[in-house]
């Protein structure tokens, strides 16, 4: 018997361009990359040089702090480029796909958790607190596996999952914790497990955020650590342990108002957007913003040089909107403007029909003025305004007391969306978490 939890505070933003269930196979992408920025918590060092031959699961980057923890190549091929940015920081390492795909032999020398760390799957997990790649020595209190993504236009995650492999993966994970493995499933999904405790959530964003799931199942306290991962990673662990193979294949949804025909594509982690999005973007006069991920937490990418970023299984295409000159926008009666407040006439036609959002912030930055805005979309037993003020003030004691260990930047995405004062909340929370980690280590 699975537990069921109803999230009441939240918002499903009605954005146009949901992917239909047609799945095409992307066989034209030849370039795949790993971006170390997607794996916060460690300093990553390159383990390869351009021109090196690599296999699936070969280490491309390793953690300076614990060198067995690796970021691995999603494909077999040749290392093409190590792109460095400011202060020689590695932005990405790209690998040119070759026809023969095989697993790196070195992985056979590793067992158990070491195998997970070496294969690159460990880096695909996160820990609370801090929302970073887990610390290598700390055993988790519990492990939370998420089987759905409630973000705007996100694809269904359970579609392409081999349930036996998933179950095997959950069994492996169970061995790493004295506590429980929790599997969070969306309402209406038949997925369940004998190893993990299944918890059913209603599909109201941010119910799919693992932080919300933890807060409603068993909150993280100071001094505790839990691991979080998606079912895709759990399935990959299951495959690695039962079949001795590693596959970074994934299904990606191409979505958004500017997607020509929103649909699903089967490709691999880190695929180059130049080929993945070929012919997928609507031809408009407007500049198009390409987001690797969803509109709330995704990363703005250049369509020519960008890649599919971890952990997203979604590309969202929206208008940039920076050429729109709106005359007296504050007085606008335009029915195409979405607001959760009933201050624009759009609510008359109902707020569930899809809107074409663009990237404008639609107002000026102000101090926190309206109260209770964030709380309506923030299903934690936390006062978000007070936590943010503690973060702005860099008051570590207050941050801890107000529950910073329970949250991740993504949990502040909806508050940031509805914020009348247009503040950058996710950035603030990320800075707060980093500051706290630096000061308390």
């Amino acid at each position, binding site marked *: 018997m699975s537990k069921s939890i109803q999230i009441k505070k939240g918002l499903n*933003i009605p954005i146009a361009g949901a992917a239909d269930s047609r799945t095409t196979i992307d066989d034209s992408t030849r370039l795949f990359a790993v971006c170390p920025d997607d794996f916060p918590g460690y300093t990553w060092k390159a383990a390869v040089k351009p021109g090196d031959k690599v296999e699936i699961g070969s280490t491309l980057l390793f953690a300076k702090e614990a060198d067995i923890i690796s970021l691995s190549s999603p494909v077999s091929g040749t290392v093409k480029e190590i792109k460095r940015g400011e202060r020689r920081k590695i932005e990405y390492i790209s690998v040119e796909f070759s026809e023969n795909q095989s697993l790196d032999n070195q992985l056979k020398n590793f067992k158990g958790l070491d195998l997970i760390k070496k294969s690159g799957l460990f880096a695909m997990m996160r820990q609370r607190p801090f929302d970073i790649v887990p610390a290598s020595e700390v055993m988790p209190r519990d492990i939370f596996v998420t089987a759905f993504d409630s973000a705007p236009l996100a694809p269904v995650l359970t579609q392409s999952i081999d349930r036996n492999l998933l179950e095997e993966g959950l069994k492996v994970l169970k061995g790493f914790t004295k506590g429980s493995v929790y599997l969070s499933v969306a309402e209406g999904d038949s997925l369940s497990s004998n190893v993990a405790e299944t918890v059913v959530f209603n599909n109201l964003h941010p119910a799919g955020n693992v932080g919300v799931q933890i807060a409603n199942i068993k*909150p993280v*306290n*100071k*001094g*505790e650590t839990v691991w979080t991962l998606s079912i895709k990673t759990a399935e990959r662990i299951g495959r690695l342990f039962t079949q001795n193979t590693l596959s970074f294949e994934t299904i990606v949804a191409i979505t958004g108002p500017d997607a020509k025909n929103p649909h699903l594509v089967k490709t691999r982690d880190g695929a180059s957007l130049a080929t993945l999005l070929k012919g997928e973007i609507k031809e408009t006069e407007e500049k198009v*913003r390409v*987001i690797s991920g969803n*509109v*709330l*937490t995704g990363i703005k990418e250049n369509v020519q040089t960008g890649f599919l970023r971890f952990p997203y299984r979604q590309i*969202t295409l*929206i208008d*940039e*909107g*920076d050429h729109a*000159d*709106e*005359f*007296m926008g*504050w007085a606008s009666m335009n029915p195409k403007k*979405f*607001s*959760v*407040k*009933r*201050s*624009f006439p759009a609510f008359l036609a109902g707020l569930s029909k899809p809107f074409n*959002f*663009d*990237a*404008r*912030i*639609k*107002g*000026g930055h*102000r*101090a*926190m*003025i309206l*109260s*209770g805005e964030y*709380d309506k979309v923030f299903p934690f*037993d936390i*006062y978000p305004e*007070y936590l943010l003020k503690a973060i702005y003030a860099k008051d570590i004691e207050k941050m801890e*007391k*107000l*529950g910073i260990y329970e949250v991740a*930047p993504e949990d502040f*995405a909806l508050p*940031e*969306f*509805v914020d*009348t*004062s*247009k503040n*950058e909340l*996710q*950035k603030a929370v990320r800075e707060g978490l980093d500051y706290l980690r630096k000061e308390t280590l």
Partner: protein
Amino acid sequence: MKGLKKKIDQIKPKFEKGGKFEKLHSVFDGFYTFLFTPNETSRSGVHIHDSNDSKRTMIIVVLALLPCCLFGMWNVGYQHFLATGETGKNFLELFFYGFFAVLPQILTAYIVGLGIEFVVAQMRGHEIQEGFLVSGILIPMICPVDTPCWMLAVAVAFAVIFAKEVFGGTGYNFLNVALVTRAFLFFSYPSKMSGDGVFVSLGNQPAVDGFSGATPLGELASMAPGDQMTNVLGDPLSFTDIFFGLYPGSWGETSTFCILIGALILLFTGMANWRIMLSGIVGAFLMALVANNWMSDLYPATALDPLTQLCLGGFMFAIVFMATDPVTACRTTAGKYIYGFLIGVVTMIIRCYNAGYPEGAMLAVLLLNCFAPLIDHCVVSLNIRKRMKRAEIPNS
């Protein structure tokens, strides 16, 4: 609009750093963003935003104030012609008499207040903030119609500088700016802020025999047992008169009916908090009920029934438009109930038991403004305690 935009964009560099009119940058920016919504796009975090911004929020509040404002103007005219005994005036004559009577006040409040905002924004290098759009219309509405403009200017300047800007501007003030203005006037120029000579605009014309310009609450404070409240001509006031606001008072706040329309607009659009309004009305009603139940000849105001108490004076206006000011009110949900309730209770205590202050709403809101952070602190502390307790259990 493209042409206008082009023209403005052409002169824009002159107002930017190093330009000829660099010192007017904030003013230019204020007008620019007023005309054209900035097309700044998101750089970090979410890629899309809700359309509601601070300008829209303030405009909606001003819109919600309009019924009270327009009625108030008409009522100024109505009271004037009632007092001077001129009959047979039509609706527009009444309205425009009031309109021209209060226009100088509105202009004074906006010019002084916005002027200071512009200067401070320029000094700090900030954008102009919209908070004063609301305060600027609120301030004249809660003052007697005969308030001299120079007094208003001094009070507005005091309030904007010392109640708002010294704390950091919109969003950082802990006292409601409009009420600080009112309190400044009330304590600095008491003779012009109370009594029976300031609430009806006579316009240098003689009043009819038997005229009394006192507000009902003013009358009440000095009333003998058994007396009735009367209008300016000495005729008794009915509950309908009171509900619709046909009596002298601070000109924007007499009509409960119009205030309720404003409240509906605020609540429907989601700009104000219903918890504060509801608990405030409940608090005031209960306190008025208590006072009325243990009525005393010593305190004539206790003789009023709770419903009339609610509709008289500035209480409804204060609870709908002042108490719900999100910056100075409690920010936690539980805190809002306590905050609103106490405003209601304190208003009625002052009104009933302190004959020196016929109306208590202003002082009640200001008092609770001071206590709002404390109330929030207690609510948040409970949350912290719960979290600490949870963390202790596994260790013990």
